[in-house]
């Protein structure tokens, strides 16, 4: 497939980062996302976003679904998962961001009797699992798949658990070689960035670009490529006029290298989308 014909005029196109799809399941963000996308005629994303969405949302949905089936009680499941996620043993303890991983099924519990609410909660989770990463594929006009990760479009369902990548089955090395110049410009932008903008992810990207320039095969390691995630998605977005994300720190450094307008969706759903133009 000729990828270039899927690159629309930059001024009317927007590229969506994984964080946008994940936040579309959080309270209050839907309207803001919709309002932002209204201004564009073409919306694209990367298959890597499908992978990240799968890694974040689908195991959680499967965990809830399995627990609902075992306990047969919505309240018990919600309490159980709350305590598991926020127990002192859990790494989520005291991490306020992990609260977004909690589901309470409030509308169902308020609107229906216990049995009906349970049946509906199971139906919702089943649907989320059944739709899987197709949610992203169908949401966007095009999904760019330069990395060709076999895990990104894996089939999942109520009985089929999402498999996290463990054995490289992709063409990430070829993708890197094809866009080596761009990755080099990412590294340069990171090294030029003031220390206040520096993050662990950006440091990892600069380090891995250096190493992969000598041996691209090192990227064919499922523990390695998540460290490059932001750069991989940014590289797929080349040619798009705008990049819509919730990861401000990394994108603020990478977008200028692509001459993109950064659209930042705040963690607070009441805040409007911030726009940063690349001169």
């Amino acid at each position: 497939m000729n990828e270039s014909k899927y690159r629309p005029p930059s001024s009317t196109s927007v590229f969506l980062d994984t964080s946008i799809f994940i936040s579309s399941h959080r309270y209050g963000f839907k309207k803001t996302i919709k309002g932002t996308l209204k201004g564009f005629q073409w919306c694209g994303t990367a298959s890597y976003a499908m992978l990240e969405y799968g890694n974040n949302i689908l195991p959680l949905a499967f965990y809830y679904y399995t627990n609902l089936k075992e306990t047969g009680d919505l309240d018990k499941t919600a309490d159980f998962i709350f305590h598991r996620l926020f127990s002192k043993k859990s790494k989520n303890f005291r991490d306020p961001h992990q609260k977004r991983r909690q589901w309470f099924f409030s509308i169902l519990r308020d609107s229906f009797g216990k049995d009906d609410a349970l049946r509906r909660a199971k139906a919702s989770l089943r649907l989320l699992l059944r739709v899987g990463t197709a949610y992203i594929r169908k949401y966007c006009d095009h999904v760019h798949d330069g990395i060709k990760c076999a895990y990104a479009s894996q089939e999942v369902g109520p009985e089929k658990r999402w498999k996290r990548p463990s054995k490289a089955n992709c063409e990430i090395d070829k993708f890197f070689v094809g866009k080596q110049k761009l990755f080099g410009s990412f590294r340069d932008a990171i090294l030029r960035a003031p220390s206040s903008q520096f993050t662990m992810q950006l440091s990892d990207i600069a380090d891995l670009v250096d190493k992969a320039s000598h041996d691209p095969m090192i990227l064919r390691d499922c523990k390695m490529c998540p460290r490059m995630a932001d750069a991989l998605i940014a590289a797929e977005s080349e040619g798009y006029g705008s990049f819509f994300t919730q990861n401000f720190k990394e994108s603020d450094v990478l977008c200028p290298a692509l001459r993109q307008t950064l659209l930042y969706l705040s963690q607070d759903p009441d805040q409007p989308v911030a726009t940063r133009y690349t001169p």
Partner: protein
Amino acid sequence: MKAREFDLTAEPDEQQPQHITDVNQRQLRIVAEKETRSGGRGAANLESSLGPRTGDEPDQSSPSEHRDLALRGSRQNTGHILRACVKAVEDILSNADDPVEQGNAFLELNDNLADLWSRSKGQEPQFEEFVNLIHCLILKTSPGDLDDQEWKAIATVLDKASYARPMNDDQVAEYVAILAKAGCDVFRELR
């Protein structure tokens, strides 16, 4: 498409709707009566090979035909209700300046969706999930909480669904995407 299969010997469970269970029970009774009258399965077969019986004619159609008929009938009914839902959404849209008419159309939609939900038990799980998805979009809302684009998306998927029975994974994924693209708050019930 793979045909639905039901195990006649299975206990009725939550996957099996009442009307299917009724058909199963009736078929089991017919088989039992046949065997009692004719002295066992072999005799029943011999009897049927000699030609049709006169008088009290037992149902000659197979249990699977019965189940298919029941399921088809049930799907036809849900198709009608889905189209009634489309009509209700159209009324919500066309009565934007009449809160009473709009409110009544909204109640009509809610009632129809509740009816569909009660009928969805035992049909393909995708259908049950779809009905729940749509119903949850309007729970604890009023007609004005959704904009025209969202209502139109709901009407579109309801209309598509009314002709797409049985529903498959790909169709239901497409419906979710249509709703999400229009800005509908899909999966809000999880929160």
